[in-house]
């Protein structure tokens, strides 16, 4: 028993190392005077320099704006879709579910290209809003599947109880369904935010000439070579992501704590 535990423990730490070592290496590099020589000493120089380069701040702002708007859009769409379709899921043909899952399964290149062609067909000017729509449309599928799971977990009688006590259909949604799936909604929003924030391919196809998101900017800088500023930027992005994950986990933890009483 003891030996078995040790084996499991070793594998656990190996997996953790595999997942996190590259991240820590990037953070480590961000503070090196010469990123390629770990004996060169530590500095805050690159981080400070980062704050002085508007060429990076502008794309970061754009990416955040797009991520917030598209996440909100896709969560609204996906949640409403799940709320509306879950009760009648049994009546829908199986192909319908597949259709919703398609954006997740399709290679992003195809999604990006088809969205581009679609926007061109509609004669829409490529830019901020086309990227927002593109991001919202593909993350809505993820949101839909997360929310379907959340809604399936709800007691269907609860819905009936609310109607029975005098709630109109929209009141059932706002006063009973939504409060009970709120943790899922927030989780889905964070996922949609992350999907949009680090998306490269779809942004690449749908952004047109004028708009640069952070991943696009990083890509264009990479063509010149990995600069120390990029390491600094990575450090900040890891910081933001960790922060978001911590919010999610702490919400889940506090909920569990309440459940235990």
């Amino acid at each position: 028993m003891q030996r078995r535990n040790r084996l499991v423990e070793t594998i656990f730490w190996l997996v953790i190392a595999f997942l996190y070592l590259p991240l820590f290496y990037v953070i480590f590099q961000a503070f090196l005077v010469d990123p390629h020589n770990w004996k060169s000493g530590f500095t805050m120089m690159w981080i400070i320099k980062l704050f002085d380069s508007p060429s990076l701040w502008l794309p970061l702002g754009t990416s955040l704006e797009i991520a917030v708007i598209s996440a909100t859009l896709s969560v609204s769409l996906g949640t409403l879709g799940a709320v509306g379709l879950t009760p009648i899921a049994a009546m829908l043909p199986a192909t319908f579910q597949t259709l919703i899952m398609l954006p997740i399964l399709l290679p992003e290149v195809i999604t990006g290209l088809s969205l581009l062609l679609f926007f061109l067909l509609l004669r829409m000017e490529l830019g901020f809003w086309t990227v927002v729509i593109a991001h919202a449309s593909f993350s809505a599928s993820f949101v839909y599947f997360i929310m379907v799971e959340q809604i399936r977990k709800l007691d269907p009688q609860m819905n009936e109880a609310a109607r029975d006590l005098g709630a109109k259909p929209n009141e059932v949604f706002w006063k009973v369904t939504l409060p009970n799936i709120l943790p899922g909604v927030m989780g889905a929003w964070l996922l949609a935010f992350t999907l949009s924030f680090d998306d490269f391919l779809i942004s690449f196809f749908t952004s047109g000439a004028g708009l640069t998101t952070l991943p696009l900017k990083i890509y264009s800088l990479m063509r010149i070579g990995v600069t120390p500023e990029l390491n600094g930027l990575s450090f900040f992005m890891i910081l933001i992501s960790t922060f978001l994950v911590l919010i999610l986990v702490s919400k889940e933890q506090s909920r569990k704590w309440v459940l235990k009483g």
Partner: protein
Amino acid sequence: MPLELKSLSKDFGGFRLSPLDLKIERGEFFCLLGPSGCGKTTALRLMGGFETATSGSLFLKGSDITKLPPHKRNIHTVFQRYALFPHLNVFENVAFSLRLKKRPLSEIQERVKEALKLVEIENLATRKTNQISGGQSQRVALARAIVDRPDVLLLDEPLSALDPALRTKMREELKAICKKVQLTFVMVTHDQEEALQLSDRMAVMKDGICLQVGTPKAIYEDPVDSFVARFIGPVNEIKGEIVEEVEGVHAVQSLCGTFKVKKNGVALPKHISLLLRPEKMRILRTKANVHDNLIEGQIQELSYLGSRTEYTVKTKDNAFKVFEQELERQKKRSLNPGDKVFMTWRSEDSIVLPER
């Protein structure tokens, strides 16, 4: 007349609730009793508005509500699994309908408090729904449904989710609470004891058809057919033929002998089933104190149940269940399997039905 069903029916394709006519009186506790799949729950869901009727109509206080959605009916339901709102505490669960109606806060507080007091859980008002027991959840569900005084309260097997010991206790309390709130109740149950104890009147259903409507006593003592007779309580059956009638006393000839049956003013068919309730038969050690009818037999099995003892007595071609109250049994010699006994009953204590 709070609730009236006029030929209300529902066709699900596979299952059909045949046109149902019921008049539920004001202040009455009405039970829909039957085995699972008899349509009782469908009938209740039609009343609540969760199913739409295939045909027929439903009247609440004289107005047609057949096509109204649940939230427009002044009818509330206590659900089988309570269906409390997990995101709200006990107080807010009970206050739900009042908040929807945007009542003033002082009124909400007063009425919720009153409802919680009625079901004796005032002290739980601030608890979360996952911090209370099954019996307490049951009380919250009840308080939530009665707080704004609906015209009719529907109860969907309200006690079935509780464990047996608690169920008996809650049954008594439910009866007391219903007396106090003076609403009109319709309850669905498959438990005949529950129906007998709680209802003023009940409907016995089977395969989507309502077989009989009446008071518990009428249904127990005067069932319309052998299904109703058996469903409401244990019964022994003797098949026979009426051979003679003198002033309302019929002589019934059967394989185990000839018996007297007293039925006044009712025309009986020739071939009948004689149904005897186990508690209306007495078991005798000797042939003394005999009533109108007597059968001889041998004890096959007996179960001591504390308040009574249940015997299975074998006769020539039949087996009878007979109950003996403890007070009666104590006075007499104990019986063992194999003992020879006599069973006796009065001629007016049997149920007569046409033979199936």
